[in-house]
């Protein structure tokens, strides 16, 4: 007993001694983006993916200051010649609105909705998964059964049920994204934590008398981050597709909000007359989604190499 107490005491002193290192930690944190970039550049696929994502993020951020037209201003006169011209660089859509501007503002819509949904879903999913794996017992059974039930619905069936019941709006689309992602993340995290749970560092933390919350979120979860980050990267692209699909099916944001899926939906009616109206937003969506998938693939490749 005497020994145990002294070991605990020495641990505490060690930690106190480590305190002056804190500034260097901050510096490391500041260097993280640069290090991340250097890491990604080791793979060609990841670099291309990152470039595509970076391009759209930049365009979306700059949308308000770029010299482009109003995305919802209607110019019926332009429909006489809806193809790319001096007045409208990429032409106009079936309602006479500038396609270039709608694509840029649409990117802003998608890149605004997807991260909110995905991040909230991962916070909830990781918490539930960790809780479920670490606590076990009835908590685990309850969480696992609910996950099973939601995962039993094919994703699109779930979306159609949800959105037609509550009606399409920004908030509801984010809610639908969260509901569909959370169960998958919960299952993934649960599996990872179950594997880590029997490691020595967990027993060590338990022996030091750390609270179970500390063990779950400071000891366990950070050690499972690799596969979770990888999964999140792929799911980002998938969420963007999903927002596009909702828009395409007419369950997305109500018009006239610029939204790639909605633009493609409106343009498919005139596809046989003016194909460029549908193809341009299609290219925008495809490049962004391919960007996320290439980035995810590249990261997986790099992490497998070591």
């Amino acid at each position, binding site marked *: 007993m005497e020994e145990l107490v002294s070991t605990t005491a020495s641990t505490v002193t060690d930690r106190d001694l480590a305190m002056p290192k804190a500034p260097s930690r901050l510096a490391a944190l500041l260097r993280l983006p640069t290090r991340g970039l250097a890491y990604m550049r080791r793979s060609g696929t990841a670099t291309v993916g990152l470039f595509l994502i970076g391009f759209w993020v930049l365009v979306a951020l700059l949308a308000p200051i770029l010299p482009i037209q109003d995305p919802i201003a209607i110019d019926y006169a332009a429909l006489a010649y809806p193809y790319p011209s001096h007045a409208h660089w990429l032409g106009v859509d079936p309602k006479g609105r500038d396609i270039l501007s709608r694509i840029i503002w649409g990117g802003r819509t998608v890149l605004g909705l997807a991260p909110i949904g995905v991040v909230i879903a991962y916070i909830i999913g990781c918490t539930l998964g960790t809780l479920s794996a670490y606590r076990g017992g009835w908590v685990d059974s309850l969480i696992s059964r609910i996950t*099973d039930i939601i995962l039993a*619905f*094919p*994703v699109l069936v779930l979306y159609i049920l949800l959105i037609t019941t509550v009606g399409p709006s920004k908030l509801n689309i984010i809610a639908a994204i969260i509901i569909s992602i959370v169960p998958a993340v919960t299952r993934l995290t649960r599996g990872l934590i179950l594997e880590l749970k029997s490691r020595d560092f967990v027993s060590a933390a338990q022996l030091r008398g750390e609270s179970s919350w500390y063990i779950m979120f400071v000891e366990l979860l950070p050690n499972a981050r690799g596969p979770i980050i990888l999964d999140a990267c792929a799911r980002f692209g998938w969420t963007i597709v999903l927002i596009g699909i909702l828009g395409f099916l007419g369950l997305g944001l109500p018009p006239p909000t610029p939204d790639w899926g909605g633009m493609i939906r409106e343009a498919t009616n005139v596809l046989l007359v003016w194909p460029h109206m549908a193809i341009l937003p299609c290219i925008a969506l495809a490049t962004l989604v*391919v960007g996320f*998938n*290439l980035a995810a693939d590249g990261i997986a490749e790099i992490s497998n190499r070591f």
Partner: protein
Amino acid sequence: MVQSCIVVLACTMLVFIATEATPGSVARKLLGPFASAQQVEILTQALGLNDPAYVRYFRWLGTVTGLSSVSIDPQATKNWSLQSLDTRTYFGNFGYSTLYKKPVNKVLWERLANSALLAGVALAVIIPISIAVGVLCGLNRYSLLDRTLSIVCVVTTAIPEFVWGILLITIFVLKLGVLPGTAPLQLSGNWSIAQQLVLPALVLILVDFGYIARMVRSSVIEVANKPYVRTAVLKGLGRTEIVLKHILRNAMIAPLTIILLQINFLISGVVVTEVIFAYPGFGRMLLEAALFGDIAVVQGAAIVSVVLAISTQFLGDIGYRLLNPRMRGA
């Protein structure tokens, strides 16, 4: 097995809550927007739709499973004929569809058959191509061929169905004029049904084959690194024999279960492709019914898709056990 049944039961409850326990009169939803207030009133009386939700849930469950007959209050329907009700008692009685003017059960089977046709055509191409590509990549890991094909797989899978649909229609219908842009599965114009199926199936193939090919690839790589493959090499066996007997046989186990899960996706998850090509499939029926507010069809379709998903999962588990000798005892 018992667990699957409980999950299905919980799903029926969720579907019921989403369709019937939400604001709006159920009779109005069943009869559609063009029914008069009087008709709505009569149906509400006849079916006892003013009862609490849990009473209605169990009554509905009884009707669907064919355990109890449809209960209609004869007092309320004295002077009225109830065409829009399927009063027979049988398993899978989801009621009458106001949108399609048929019993829901009939609509479901028709649409499922159409979707299965498309899924069958697509799978017949996807399985051989994806296995060939996956094995080729897996055996030549990190070669130029592997890198190129892997990127092709990532890109084709990442591009969404509707983007493929629009690109293919532009090329084959608009520019070349060799294929029809819609697939209503009826002989219209000069296009045969086989020609109509080409483009929708092509979209599904492009979207799906890369995913399976990558699964096959990683499975082949995993097996090729196993000690028994090294033993076979050191034993002096020929390359063909090692690849066919030692690697491929074991590497196919994991992808087969994935392929089984794809059947489920190809039948109920391809709403977008069906919408683009106006294909009369299962997913489009669910979307149309949901937008129209035909809750009888929505309930039926949602439950059928859940049952389909759970049974393919179940079959996948059984298949995995049969193929993997180590799992047989478990």
